[in-house]
């Protein structure tokens, strides 16, 4: 009896894991099946023609990467600063820290369309940035921040207090303990939060339609409007008849891009970690 229930349990665990993997593989397979035919080198390096039915996605790729770069440039320093403050400079049970954590958790759950409308009202209109890569990137930064701050904070808080006490006992300043010991030790969590953020940002449509716009020309500066890949996919599959195969190909590119960025970030953090902290 015992072995039977044990076996059933093992089987269901395997089943659950296999189901998760299968869903992803099916999605990837479907994209590859439909998108491969349309995908070529010239698809990546040429301008879209005929509303994206033919031609390529070069300007869209560039816009996507620029939006992402703006978002990260704004979110990383702000997010790390906030995480450090929450984890190191305020009491864990203090009222201010608690209310900030609560508001971050609420922000993390807000639908992206709300961020889009906020971004439009604040960055495009109020700050006068208009429909631009800058507006889009900053809106995405607002979206990434809550989850990035909370994961980084959790990573920092999980670092053993022993090192803080040791470092203090050696007469080290808080800043240098943070820089030399705590941040490297928390790096895996920080990178993880960053990757969650990047994933969310590159997949974002709703927040970008109202902020970075959907002009599919090659952007000339950060104040130009630019169409992100996800917006392009949405447009092709919803608004452009006969755009399906281009949409599939773009989606495939988007997925490959995300995988690339994630493995790149992992490899980078691995190298950084072996150089700086070298775990056992």
């Amino acid at each position, binding site marked *: 009896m015992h072995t039977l229930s044990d076996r059933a349990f093992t089987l269901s665990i395997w089943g659950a894991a296999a189901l998760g993997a299968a869903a992803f593989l099916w999605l990837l397979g479907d994209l590859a099946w439909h998108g491969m035919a349309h995908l070529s080198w010239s698809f990546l390096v040429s301008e879209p023609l005929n509303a994206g039915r033919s031609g390529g996605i070069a300007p869209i790729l560039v816009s996507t990467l620029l939006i992402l770069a703006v978002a990260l440039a704004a979110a990383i320093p702000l997010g790390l600063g906030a995480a450090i403050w929450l984890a190191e400079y305020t009491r864990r049970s203090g009222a201010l820290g608690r209310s900030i954590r609560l508001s971050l958790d609420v922000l993390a759950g807000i639908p992206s369309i709300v961020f889009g409308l906020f971004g439009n009202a604040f960055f495009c209109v109020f700050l006068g940035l208009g429909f631009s890569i800058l507006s889009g990137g900053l809106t995405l930064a607002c979206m990434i921040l809550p989850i990035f701050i909370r994961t980084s904070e959790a990573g920092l808080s999980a670092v053993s207090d022993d090192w803080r006490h040791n470092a203090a006992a050696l007469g*080290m300043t808080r800043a*240098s303990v943070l820089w030399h*010991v705590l941040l490297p*030790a928390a790096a895996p969590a920080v990178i993880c939060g960053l990757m969650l953020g990047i994933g969310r940002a590159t997949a974002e449509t709703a927040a970008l339609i109202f902020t970075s716009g959907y002009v599919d020309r090659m952007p000339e500066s950060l104040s130009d409007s630019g169409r992100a890949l996800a917006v392009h996919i949405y447009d092709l599959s919803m608004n452009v008849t006969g755009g399906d195969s281009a949409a599939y190909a773009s989606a495939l590119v988007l997925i490959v891009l995300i995988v690339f960025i994630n493995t790149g970030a992992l490899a980078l953090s691995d190298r950084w970690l072996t150089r700086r*902290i070298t*775990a056992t």
Partner: protein
Amino acid sequence: MNMPGPEPLVTYTIGGIESGPPCCEPVPHLRIANLSIAYGSATVLDNMSLDIYKGCITALIGPSGCGKTSFLTALNRLTDLIPGAKVGGSVQFEGIDVLDPNVDLLVLRRRIGMIFQKPNPFPLSIRRNLELPLREHGIRHRDVLEYKIETALREVGLWEEVRDRLDSPALALSGGQQQRLCIARALVLEPEVLLMDEPCSALDPISSGVVEELIQRLCGRLTVIIVTHNLAQARRIANYAAFLWMKESVGKLIEFGQCRNLFEAPKHELTSAYVSGATG
């Protein structure tokens, strides 16, 4: 240091000891008067007064929870890191009022080093572990750094064991080696006082013996205050001993004196019961 040349090492062994000189002229190095420590509303140590003598090893013994560790952390103001900790009374160290809120903590902690119960080198290379506190205190010259690092490692008997792998991770060392590295990391700053909080309790008997010998070698050069639950160890290495006991869950100093007197001719019946193993 302005003290008489190092006396021959005094080794107390278990068993009847007739007499033995104190390690040097008892010159007070730290004068502790009416020291009280409370966490929130719970007092852990009440009204403790004693002199810690320069160049001597003073052992603090007593049951768990009687405030020994709290006492140590008050001396280098590590209590500042514990939310809600209140320290009253006075601690005088070479003309410095240690408990003065304006005292320069970085300088104080450089002069009063601390070794913790659990060996916890930073997750960095062996070299970086020693370099970090030195750089923190403004020593940046390559040759000076190398010289000081080698000296400290030789002092703890670790140099021959690690000279070929200074750049490998400190966390890959064995527990005993890690603890010696931590002692080297404290010694590299050339402190005048070393606080040791059960430095051998997490080590196997052989490593423990090595660390013990090392502490004995420091006698005469440094003022050492060591918390230990190992009475035989206290007896072997300490020149002076203080016995703390809990009265109504508040720690109190019961007896302080030369180590052998405390063990062989205790004045207080609690001390007598504790060192003979009848209570505690």
